[in-house]
């Protein structure tokens, strides 16, 4: 393994300033295989010699020439240049990850060895592409090959630039683990292909969010390959369906699939066909908490729980939990401090069995509903009630909440009563009452739901 020279950041800044106006010929003339300011890591490995740097430079120049250098680079050539360069750097530099994480190494290669090629590839010549940070013209290519490619499969050549960026820009998360990132990327490509999805990028982004949320609860890094693949597949299918990226024929199959083994959330998404509801539902997802360096998220949001997804094991108890909270509020509910006991009773569970985590969770769900404007908590008495007149986005939220509650209730009741839809609808109306505050009644929602489900079933029979 080889140690590379490191260009100090202040020096890189000066050189980048000088590169701003120089034409490509001039930059090629300035190209060098050493710089007097360079320093090396004090330990580990042999220093690369100038001859080897010159060889690397020739290699990069050949690739660039092959991709149209010095002509203005087009999108196809850019992709090709990135693929070939990534593979070449990873194979020929013989640099260890620890050294490759050092910005000075990449600043040296970019600003000293191949400034011409870097400025050709990124004609806007922004600092972030030229200094040694994570988005450096060359560094990002080395790292994506390191994370994703294996002798068995070169995933970087199957993914688009946007998709690679999605995966690479979360290095501190569970996606920084090749054992997770590789199957996730591979299955993403195959799920999109199987379902005939065109907008792959959005599916990946949504799927990655789902994965990160799940990583707060599940030690994904420690799952065996088979379980990991199953989780990735579930999340990505959910993402694809939730985003409505499937074409007519496939969505029909997907609907069928969901009716047979979908989660509540999938079903809710499936039947929420009018735009305001869908957008509200989507908007409800991101506000559940910020990602932290572990890739974990604060799972305090109720909607996050519905979207967790991996299999439908979660959905029954959680739906019941939410339903119990709503029942508690609707039926002249308790005060905030009495909520846990009330909910436990409705769940048929000994309040002591809920435990601290369960209590925290119930309170978080209630607080979350308050934050969204679904319910009010009286500060003095801590009394809970549905908002009398929700306004603005809260109207949509209120509809959304009732809509999804009806769905949840339908599924919960449906599961215990078999699949009799009429019976389900009546049971739901009975459970929720028929006077929700946001101008849409449970009966209407259930009628819609019933129509949806019946239509989906008859499509499935065609």
């Amino acid at each position, binding site marked *: 393994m080889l140690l590379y020279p490191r260009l100090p950041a202040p020096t890189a800044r000066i050189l980048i300033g000088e590169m701003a106006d120089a034409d490509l010929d001039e930059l090629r003339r300035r190209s060098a295989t050493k710089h007097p300011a360079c320093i090396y890591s004090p330990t580990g490995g042999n220093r690369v010699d100038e001859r080897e740097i010159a060889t690397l430079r020739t290699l990069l120049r050949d690739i660039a020439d092959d991709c149209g250098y010095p002509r203005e680079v087009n999108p196809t050539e850019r992709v090709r240049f990135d693929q070939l360069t990534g593979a070449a750097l990873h194979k020929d530099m013989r640099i260890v990850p620890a050294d490759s994480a050092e910005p000075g190494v990449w600043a040296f290669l970019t600003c000293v060895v191949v400034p011409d090629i870097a400025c050709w590839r990124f004609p806007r010549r922004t600092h972030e592409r030229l200094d040694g940070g994570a988005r450096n013209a060359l560094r990002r290519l080395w790292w994506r090959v390191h994370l994703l490619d294996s002798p068995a499969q070169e995933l970087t050549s199957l993914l688009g630039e946007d998709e690679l960026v999605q995966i690479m820009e979360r290095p501190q998360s569970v996606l920084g683990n090749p054992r997770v990132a590789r199957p996730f990327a591979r299955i993403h490509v195959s799920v999109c292909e199987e379902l005939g999805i065109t907008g792959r990028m959005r599916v990946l982004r949504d799927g990655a969010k789902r994965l990160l949320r799940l990583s707060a*609860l599940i030690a994904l*890094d420690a799952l065996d390959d088979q379980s990991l693949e199953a989780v990735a597949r579930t999340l990505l299918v959910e993402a694809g369906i939730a985003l409505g990226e499937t074409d007519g024929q496939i969505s029909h199959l997907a609907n069928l699939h969901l009716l047979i083994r979908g989660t509540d959330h999938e079903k809710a998404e499936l039947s929420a066909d009018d735009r305001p509801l869908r957008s509200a539902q989507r908007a409800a997802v991101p506000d559940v908490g910020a990602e932290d360096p572990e890739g974990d998220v604060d799972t305090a949001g109720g909607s996050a729980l519905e979207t967790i997804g991996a299999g439908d094991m*979660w959905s029954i108890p959680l739906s019941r939990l939410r339903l119990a909270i709503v029942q508690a509020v609707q039926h002249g509910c308790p005060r905030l401090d009495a909520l846990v006991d009330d909910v436990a009773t409705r769940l048929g569970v000994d309040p002591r069995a*809920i435990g601290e985590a369960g209590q925290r969770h119930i309170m978080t769900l209630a607080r979350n509903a308050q934050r969204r404007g679904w319910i009010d908590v009286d500060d003095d008495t801590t009394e809970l009630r549905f908002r009398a007149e929700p306004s603005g986005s809260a109207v949509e939220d209120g509809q959304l909440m009732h809509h999804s509650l009806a769905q949840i209730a339908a599924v919960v009741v449906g599961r215990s009563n078999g699949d009799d839809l009429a019976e389900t609808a009546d049971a739901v109306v009975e459970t929720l009452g028929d006077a929700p505050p946001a101008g849409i009644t449970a009966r209407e929602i259930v009628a819609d739901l019933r129509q949806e489900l019946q239509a989906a079933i008859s499509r499935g029979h065609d």
Partner: protein
Amino acid sequence: VTRIVALPYLTADPNRVAPGAWIGTDGQRVDLLPDWDYGTEVRVTRALEIDLEGVREDCSLERSARLAITVVWRATRTAARGALPATVLPAAADHWAGEIRLQLDGAELGGELRLMTRLVLATVGNEPQPLAPHLVGSVLWEDRHTILLEGGGARFPMEVVDFAAARLPAAGAAWYLHWPREDLHQPVMGALRLYVNDGHPMMRALLNGELTEDLSAGVVSTMRYDAVRSLVTAVLADDEFVEDPMLYQDGSVGALLRRLLNAYWPDQSVISLRNHATSRPEAFNSELQERMRLLRLTD
């Protein structure tokens, strides 16, 4: 930073697991590996005792549910991440005591090595209870430990360079602090660096070990003070930082500065510090000297 995650299932009381310290090859607890470089493997072990019966009770798990122990590791500098394959604990046992061993290739590592020991659900029981964890891999108990690799350098990266050759603004200066004033979210390891001028006679003598002990300690003390003073003064003028210093993730420059402020002024909020630093900069500077024990080499 305490982050409360409301898990949607029951978890174990932390006292059900008695974790031993992470132990290095020398048999001592490891928080810091001062002589580490990436040619060196990291080998650590820890003993664990788990009250399995208690965990099952806390989580409403049946006896048929199996548990496993795993370690997820992550290196901040390389962003490398991986996990020890899960050890599935014996079925139906009430108690487990054992040791876990972690051996990592140094070439993947750098910065801080974060270790998360996790007790997870390995197999779901026959009839899962409501609120009990239902998914394989659900985290029931977790413990985190950080090992600092590369000693002091990981906390405050430093580099020796000839200022004239590096074309730094003032070739005659003794040191130069480079930091991302405009983006405090950047990682300390990549973005913050103190360059020491190899072309400066006193600095070169310091680096070559040619100064007396007192003189060398005095120079280092002054250098530290100067670096911290520039960082702290600038960051207290940064509105985004002052508004929400908790915004910055561990390992970022913003988080380092938050910790510095908290270390030297544990009793003051960032906002009141800003007021203090702007209204009475002289007092603020001399307080910092006192708190950093500037040039107090012996006592």
